[in-house]
């Protein structure tokens, strides 16, 4: 078998055992890697109803067939498990040297089971696995932990680690790597923390199996140079992702004041121009030639690496427009290992709830000192409010009551990304049907809505576009495991990916073949949710109620007087289900499962919930 190492590494922290497990070529072809491997393993091995923060959950690191091979932009890994914040399937991806090192060690995925007796660092060195004490850095942030690991093993190793957020089981704690990378905002840092797993360190020395290594090397390195040339021409990485902030502000899509407002006259103060001007360093993932991590000095003079999601949700969303102050909140999230996006939404939700008398306290929007203190209380689970908010906005709203769930900005429990869909129906659908909760990585459809469609439309063309983008972004890039930015930001053609796949695996696939795998993976994620929530229905795919609220409309600007219309949204959702072959609950029908090759998994799901 070319293209895959053909082995998983299974580690049990409870009894400190490990073994290499072979997988078949049929399995590899059916699920490809990354998210595909992760959901299949979790679906087959997790008993429905387990506590995601208990020892029965599993922490998966999954790679794809081109992961770690020099080519655009392959230095990424998927981390996955049952999500503590949604209770469904959860994953995320992050840039890390683990992508290359784990494959060189001989594995396409790492499966971590059980719970350690004390804080532990897992060290994988080819065939050898060590369970080393990590008590020295337990209770410390991710920066100190990363440096501690580098001091022992050098900077060439692959590292995943968590901060206090993960240790304290903050439900939106992330996994961190390198200088500024984070992933797994569905709470994968808390899953590591629940296992007392402080860090994973990987070093490998073996060749990665490839059908045509010389051909791949030439094509991959040529293409890395070409992507760099294109990026220089387009200028995308001058402002990187934060370039979009000014655009969101112009088209009334910026989250301001817990998404109550869609634009703000001070937004320019933290836009891409200002971020580029404040730049002190640039960071990127391995195998990347269009690096997007712009670091600035925060108010304390520390390096803080920002992107649009961080700035949007920790800035305007909190009515903070000062970049160094935003940088400080971002640094704190990164050091604590708390998701900047959910963190921003939880902070804004609380300020909104206080403002409306639904929650106790005196925190106000714009109060950066208050937000800093609250962020610390959340990460360290200090005090009643810190503990409530560490559970995420959905659970906090249930606690506070007074209708606050309507403006807890989340879907399925996961907080929304920094696109205010008060009047963007297709993007609201994209958040609604994202299979891990509200996340922009699955289908970023705003550009289509404002370029090739009509903003007011709730027509099937938007549902189809959401599906098309899910197949590429939530499918291809998550199972072949590669960054989507060369394609979406710099127009790198998708046709390169079947070419890379053929060079490593020898398999001559088309993009249509990949879309079938994408749909298969989405269908299995849906079955995972059905098993966990047998009474599931379409309400799980509704966006926050405040977007439908006529009393919440903008009073001026491009969408003055506009809001999402519920019946029309429901119709758009039905278009999506019809096009996907899902029933009215949003569950794949038996015929769809048969077509996608997941009928057997469907029969297993029927022990818990019904299929139509």
């Amino acid at each position: 078998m070319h293209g895959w190492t053909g082995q998983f590494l299974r580690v049990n922290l409870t009894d400190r055992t490990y073994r290499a497990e072979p997988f078949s070529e049929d399995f590899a072809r059916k699920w490809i890697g990354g998210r595909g491997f992760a959901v299949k393993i979790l679906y087959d091995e997790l008993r429905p109803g387990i506590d995601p923060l208990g020892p029965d959950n599993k922490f998966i690191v999954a790679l794809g067939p081109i992961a770690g091979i020099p080519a655009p932009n392959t230095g990424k890994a998927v981390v996955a498990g049952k999500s503590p914040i949604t209770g469904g399937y959860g994953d995320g991806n992050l840039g890390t040297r683990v992508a290359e090192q784990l494959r060189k060690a001989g594995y396409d995925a790492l499966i971590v089971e059980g719970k350690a007796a004390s804080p532990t660092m897992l060290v994988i060195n080819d065939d050898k696995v060590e369970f080393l004490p990590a008590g020295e850095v337990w209770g410390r942030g991710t920066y100190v932990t990363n440096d501690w690991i580098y001091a022992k093993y050098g900077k060439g190793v692959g590292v995943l680690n968590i901060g206090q957020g993960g240790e304290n089981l903050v439900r939106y704690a992330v996994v961190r790597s390198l200088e500024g990378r984070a992933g797994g905002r569905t709470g994968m840092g808390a899953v590591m923390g629940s296992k007392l797993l402080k860090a994973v360190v990987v070093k490998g020395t073996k060749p990665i199996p490839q059908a045509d290594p010389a051909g791949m090397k030439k094509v991959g390195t040529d293409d890395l140079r070409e992507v760099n040339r294109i990026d220089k021409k387009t200028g995308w990485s001058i402002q990187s992702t934060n370039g979009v902030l000014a655009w969101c502000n112009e088209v009334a899509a910026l989250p301001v004041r817990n998404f109550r407002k869609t634009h703000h006259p001070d937004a320019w103060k933290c836009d891409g121009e200002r971020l580029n001007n404040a730049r002190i360093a640039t960071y990127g993932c391995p195998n990347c030639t269009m690096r997007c991590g712009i670091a600035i000095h925060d108010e304390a003079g520390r390096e803080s690496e920002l992107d649009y999601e961080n700035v949007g949700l920790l800035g305007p969303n909190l009515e903070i427009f000062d970049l160094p102050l935003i940088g400080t909140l971002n640094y704190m999230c990164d050091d604590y290992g708390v998701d900047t996006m959910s963190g921003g939404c939880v902070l804004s939700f609380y300020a909104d709830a206080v403002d409306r008398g639904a929650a106790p306290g005196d925190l106000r929007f714009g109060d950066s000192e208050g937000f800093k203190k609250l962020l610390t209380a959340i990460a360290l689970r200090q005090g009643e409010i810190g503990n409530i908010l560490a559970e995420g906005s959905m659970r906090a709203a249930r606690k506070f009551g007074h209708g606050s769930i309507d403006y807890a900005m989340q879907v399925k429990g996961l907080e929304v990304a920094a696109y205010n869909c008060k009047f963007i129906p297709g993007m609201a659908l994209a958040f609604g049907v994202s299979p891990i909760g509200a996340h922009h990585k699955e289908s970023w459809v705003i550009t289509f809505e404002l370029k090739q469609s009509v903003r007011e439309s709730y027509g099937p063309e938007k549902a189809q576009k959401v599906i098309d983008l899910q197949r590429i972004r939530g499918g291809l890039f998550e199972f072949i495991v590669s960054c989507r930015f060369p394609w979406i930001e710099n127009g790198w053609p998708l046709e390169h990916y079947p070419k890379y796949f053929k060079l490593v695996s020898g398999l001559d696939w088309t993009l249509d073949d990949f879309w079938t795998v994408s749909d298969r993976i989405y269908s299995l994620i849906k079955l995972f949710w059905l098993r966990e929530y047998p009474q599931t229905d379409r309400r799980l795919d509704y966006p926050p109620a405040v977007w439908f609220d006529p009393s919440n409309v903008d009073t001026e600007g491009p969408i003055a007087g506009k809001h999402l219309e519920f019946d029309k949204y429901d119709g758009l959702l039905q278009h999506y289900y019809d096009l996907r072959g899902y029933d009215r609950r949003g569950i794949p029908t038996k015929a769809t499962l048969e077509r996608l090759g997941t009928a057997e998994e469907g029969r297993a799901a029927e022990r818990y919930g019904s299929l139509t």
Partner: protein
Amino acid sequence: MTITVKLIGPFVQLFGFSEKPLDVPEGTTADDLIGLVSIDKSRPKVVTRNGRAVVPGEPLADGDRVVISPIYSGG
């Protein structure tokens, strides 16, 4: 009539301004405007007029705000 043109992202650095008013003749369309600010028409971009998609060929009106942005995917 006067139209405000706002550039987004790297277009600011590449074309040398962030936002400026332009006096243009009646009947000017967004497409004409793109030519006036020297942006290659073949370049992928999103153009909005007062926060909404531009209708091809539609004349602009005095006081309009036209935003020209590269295509983004978010963070």
